[in-house]
């Protein structure tokens, strides 16, 4: 096994989606790891060209130009991502909404959109007969789920390249780990990642051993109050910070945002319905709660 000093050579980073992705691997040759990282980062770049709302050629850019009664064909990636987003929106009672901005300025209900599987393709349609949101149409922003989705798709590439031990993260806000970390003492060890941020809650673990799952964090610690409550268009007040772990990085990514908005009772109810969702939410300086604790191997 490589020494940890050698490990830096199996660590690759890449700018995309407005953040820095990083891939660490263990037990691979340097050349091979380098090629793997290229395949992974190419995939992330490809998804960025589909997802970017700043690029009018991207699929999200195209959807954002639609008016009621119009539709556009999209690829399976955008379709899957939106489908998951809409499902999570429904399950969180709109605490998570990739389309909230379309109603933001005038505080109207966001413009509705429909996902349809048509013959040999996928379609996004804005139904007729509704008043379009304040910006004139729809205003999708995959910022709260796209990076997680990109991690999920990257894991597929790692599997294809038969990489068994890796940690991949998107700007540290969402991470996924597989296999054992470098210098693991036991075969079933996970990659230790920090958790809990600046908060001093006694029950909160400081370390999460990540393996076969994703972990995503959201909080007011960085960038100020950046999560907006789509129900009120005001800054989220549900929690000071939230961490969510789930086998899918896209789900973890979206839920960590939703849990910032949702009240603790709502999160509790949600986690009782979805037994695969582990979560830590920070209520205030001293109080926090953990749901489905048995799913995670954490350390104080």
């Amino acid at each position, binding site marked *: 096994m490589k020494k940890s000093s050698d490990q830096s050579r199996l660590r690759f980073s890449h700018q995309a989606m407005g953040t820095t992705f990083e891939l660490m691997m263990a037990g691979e040759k340097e*050349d*091979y790891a*380098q*090629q*793997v990282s*290229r*395949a992974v980062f190419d995939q992330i770049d490809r998804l960025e060209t589909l997802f970017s709302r700043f690029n*009018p*050629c991207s699929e999200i*850019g*195209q*959807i954002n*130009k*639609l*008016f009621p*009664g*119009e*539709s*556009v*064909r*999209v*690829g*399976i990636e955008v379709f*899957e991502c939106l*489908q*998951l987003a809409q*499902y999570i929106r429904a*399950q969180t009672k709109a605490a998570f909404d990739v389309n909230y901005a379309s109603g933001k300025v005038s505080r109207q209900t966001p413009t509705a959109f*429909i*996902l*349809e*599987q*048509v*013959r*040999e*393709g*996928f*379609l996004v*349609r*804005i139904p007729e007969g509704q008043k379009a949101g304040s910006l004139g149409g729809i205003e999708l922003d995959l910022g709260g789920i796209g990076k997680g989705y990109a991690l999920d798709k990257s*894991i597929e590439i790692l599997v*294809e*390249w*038969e990489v068994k031990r890796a940690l991949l993260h998107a700007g540290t806000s969402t991470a996924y780990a597989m296999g054992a970390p470098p210098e693991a003492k036991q075969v*079933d060890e996970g990659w230790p990642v920090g958790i809990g941020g600046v908060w001093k809650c006694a029950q909160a673990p400081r370390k999460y051993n990540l*393996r*076969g*799952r994703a972990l995503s964090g959201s909080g007011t610690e960085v960038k100020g109050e950046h999560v907006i409550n789509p129900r009120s268009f005001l800054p989220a007040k549900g929690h000071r910070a939230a961490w969510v772990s*789930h*086998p*899918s990085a896209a*789900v973890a990514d979206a839920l960590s945002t939703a849990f910032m908005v949702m009240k603790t009772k709502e999160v509790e109810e949600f986690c009782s*319905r*979805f*037994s*695969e*969702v582990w979560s830590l939410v920070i209520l205030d300086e001293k109080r926090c709660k953990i749901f489905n604790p048995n*799913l995670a191997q954490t350390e104080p």
Partner: protein
Amino acid sequence: MKSRSDNMSGGKWSRRDFLRSSASAGLGIALTGRTLSGAAMLPGQEEDQNLPDLNVAVIGAGQQGRILIESCLRIPGIRMKAVCDIWAYSQRYASRYLKKYGHEVNVYEDYRELLSKEKDLDAAIVATPDWMHATQTNACLEAGLHVYCEKEMSNSLSKARSMVQTARKTGKLLQIGHQRRSNPRYLHAIDRLVLDKKILGRVSQIYAQWNRAKMDMYGWPKQYTMDQNKLAKYGYASMTHFRNWRWFKKFAGGPIVDLGSHQIDIFSWVLGITPSTVVALGGKDYYKNREWYDNVMVIYEFNTPEGKARAMYQVQTTTKNGGFYETFMGDMGALQISEVPQRGDWAMREAHAPEWDSLVKEGLLKSEKPPLQKLDTQNIFLDVRVTAEAGRWPLPIDLAKPAHQPHLENFFNAIVHGIPLNCPAEVGYETAVAVLRVNDAVEARRLLSFRPEQFEV
């Protein structure tokens, strides 16, 4: 350890169920195509082109083949029927991806088998490495198919010539994949503004570049290593050659052909004439174990009816400074355009040029930062500002779809509606003549000239 799954297990939902419930039956006519005039349709404008289904095969499902497949999947009426690729990785990727969209394709290793077995094809897309284009394209044309063949048409002019001849002989359509030729932004800028409205005046200088950051060679997932016999059967000495064919002389023409040909192709479109001479310097100065020049600087001369024009081009593979774009300069203005609008999407007017405001009124240009101007309403001649912004007049058109889609749409519309191809074999051939000659010029280290008949087949 919990296994990864698509669904949020514990809940009642699975992704597949959700798909089923949201899928509405019987739809399939919503179109976001392109009008036949060449203008892009805005997304959402639905147009029933009554395109009958076209059955399409893809030969070469690597990176570019997949991009073309993705675009085809956004064009209603296109049915993907077969995929040919010698590499299991590409076969699997493409067939699985297509299956998700409901296209069940037959997969082949050998294009000849594909052609003998698939009997209801209308067209083939050829996206293999350059050196295979001629053989495969000719076979498809001979089998009665229309062909969309990726650039570079071929790595040898005699092979490229055979493609033009076969297209003529069979009467089938052959579109070469210089996709800027169908890009509505390029069509508007060049056909409308430069050629029709002549906003640049006399164009006598061109500058273009494609600078790309340093890159390692491509690798491959271990489990998809092809054995030596199979590699040899298809002409590749090693997996490294197979994956990095663009850098080796047997298969391709190196970066100047790979990247440069897209942009050098546009020079003749704007000037309306093929070049008369070329001089170039370049070398294998950075990468070891690669055969082609990793940097090239070229100057072409054109004898236009209005006089000499010169075009300077560079391709760099160790810096991405400036990225890729093309600039056309005339005595009345300049146009900077790029396939990525951030790099070029505007015209610049010379101070003495006729006013462009009427173009703005007609919707042919946008005026972003109006330069100093007389204000009629107030009794002053100028609004004096700290610095007058150099006027950048943005193009008024967005391409709201992937870059290759309009070129494929042009090809399919040509098949169905008989409209002209935007890059027929003859045009692709002219570009191949101009571009492949750069490598000769680098080697010769002197000025080389073209005879007009060299561009003809």
